């Protein structure tokens, strides 16, 4: 066998290996989906979405959890998006390139890898206890905002970095100020990348359970929150709660709630893909 034959065999082997890797991922996902759907699909109904939690599984619903989740997400978005985008813009557009900047850069990336339960402990101490916000929606939103900020900052920076320098120069040479250049050229050109990062970070926040449990989100909430200072629960916590119950009925409820959560996440990711494609088409004209 000569070396080109060996190379061809290696090429084929790697191809098979890559296919197997992909297949493994898809297979696991498929089994999970099948398991969840076979248990929970029948349970899905309008009443399930609209009912309050109950100690009888067949009467229980996820109304408060869904409501709480939407509240929590809206608050998290309001807090984290402006700060994250602002910080990303500062680091990329205004900040000087020195040792300090690199230090901050590395640490932001590190923060993105910190286990979420740590953020929960931080939130518990600072927002719940020191700032006396209690186990409210606001505490939860602030904690989740901290959790997803690194992702938003990093993705904003990457998107902004991808805008060609020549476009900035064109704008500045026309007498635009830095802010005008950012608002009219840099942000529109990096919109697709930024929005993708935002939605991916939000779909991460949707699935978080650990930090919310740590800050004291309630498990049983028989009412819907009316304001940011109210107590709350969210879907992942509801699911977590139901899976710890011995009755088979609650396990089925958990499966149904998981389906709702999955649909929600797919929906968010779908929006991300749609917005990015639409923006890309517009850019290309």
């Amino acid at each position, binding site marked *: 066998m000569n070396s080109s034959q060996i190379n061809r065999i290696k090429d084929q082997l790697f191809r098979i290996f890559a296919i197997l890797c992909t297949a493994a991922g898809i297979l696991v996902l498929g089994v999970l989906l099948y398991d969840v759907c076979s248990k929970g699909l029948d349970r899905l109904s309008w009443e399930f979405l609209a009912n309050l939690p109950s100690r009888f599984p067949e009467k229980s619903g996820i109304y408060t959890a869904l409501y709480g989740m939407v509240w929590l997400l809206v608050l998290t978005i309001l807090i984290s998006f402006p700060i994250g985008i602002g910080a990303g813009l500062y680091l990329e557009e205004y900040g000087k390139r020195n040792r300090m900047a690199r230090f901050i850069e590395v640490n932001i990336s590190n923060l993105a890898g910190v286990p979420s339960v740590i953020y929960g402990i931080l939130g518990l101490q600072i927002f719940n206890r020191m700032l006396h916000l209690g186990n409210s929606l606001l505490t939860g939103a602030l904690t989740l905002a901290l959790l997803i900020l690194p992702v938003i900052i990093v993705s904003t920076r990457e998107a902004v970095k991808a805008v060609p320098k020549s*476009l*900035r120069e*064109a704008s*500045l040479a026309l*007498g635009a100020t830095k802010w005008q250049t950012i608002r009219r050229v840099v942000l529109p*050109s990096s919109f697709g990348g930024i929005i993708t990062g935002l939605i991916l970070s939000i779909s991460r926040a949707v699935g978080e359970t650990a930090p919310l449990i740590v800050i004291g989100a309630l498990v049983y909430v028989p009412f819907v929150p009316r304001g940011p200072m109210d107590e709350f629960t969210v879907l992942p916590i509801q699911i977590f709660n139901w899976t710890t119950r011995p009755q088979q009925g609650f396990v089925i409820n958990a499966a149904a709630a998981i389906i709702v959560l999955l649909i929600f996440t797919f929906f968010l990711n779908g929006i991300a893909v749609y917005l990015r494609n639409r923006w890309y088409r517009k850019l290309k004209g």
Partner: protein
Amino acid sequence: MFKLEAKNLDLFYGSKQALKNISMGIKPNTVTAFIGPSGCGKSTLLRCFNRMNDLIENVRIEGEVLIDGRDIYHSRINLDDHRKKIGMVFQKPNPFPKSIFENVAYGLRINGVTHKKFIVETVERSLRQAALWEEVKDNLNKSALALSGGQQQRLCIARALAVEPSVVLMDEPASALDPISTQKIEELVHALKSKYTIVIVTHNMQQAARISDKTAFFYIGELIEYDETSKIFTNPGHEKTQNYVTGRFG
């Protein structure tokens, strides 16, 4: 009275000196060509006139750059206002990812112009000046990125003209274009001379000879020779210039 003037100008990138004691004056309503081998400092000098070098870190500038007799580096000028008076066209066409109309209107919009009729008229006038109007008048709302390279470059010229600068700086505006587009740009430069002071950096010797009134030859950060274009190309006073314009090096 010179429109643009450099006096004993030194420029350093970190510790590397890119411009060495440059002194020259450019008269209004003339076309001046900067020629010289790559890295000779001609683009750097061009960018001093609208302070685009400020965007690069670790740049140090000594000496004076005067526009209409005012030192733009040391007097208290407003940089944004100053840049509005100096149009710039870059080597690679760099239209914004916006419509053709919005590209040209950009300079007006950042100045806070909202008068719709005025904007429409200015866009048309600028596109006509840049000899692009006939080709795009039916597609003003199409993305500028859908235009050809030559059209994009003329769009960039129209964009620069829309804010009515008195000086237009061109940094190798035709180097990325095909011969026909290049010819259009050159005709344009000629036509614009009556209203604007034009400085053009070029690698193309014939181009410099065709379109400019005066030519400046740079070599490793120094201004070797600056004279009437006809003299530079037929009877240069310096041996290096002679060698460069006849293609013996560079």
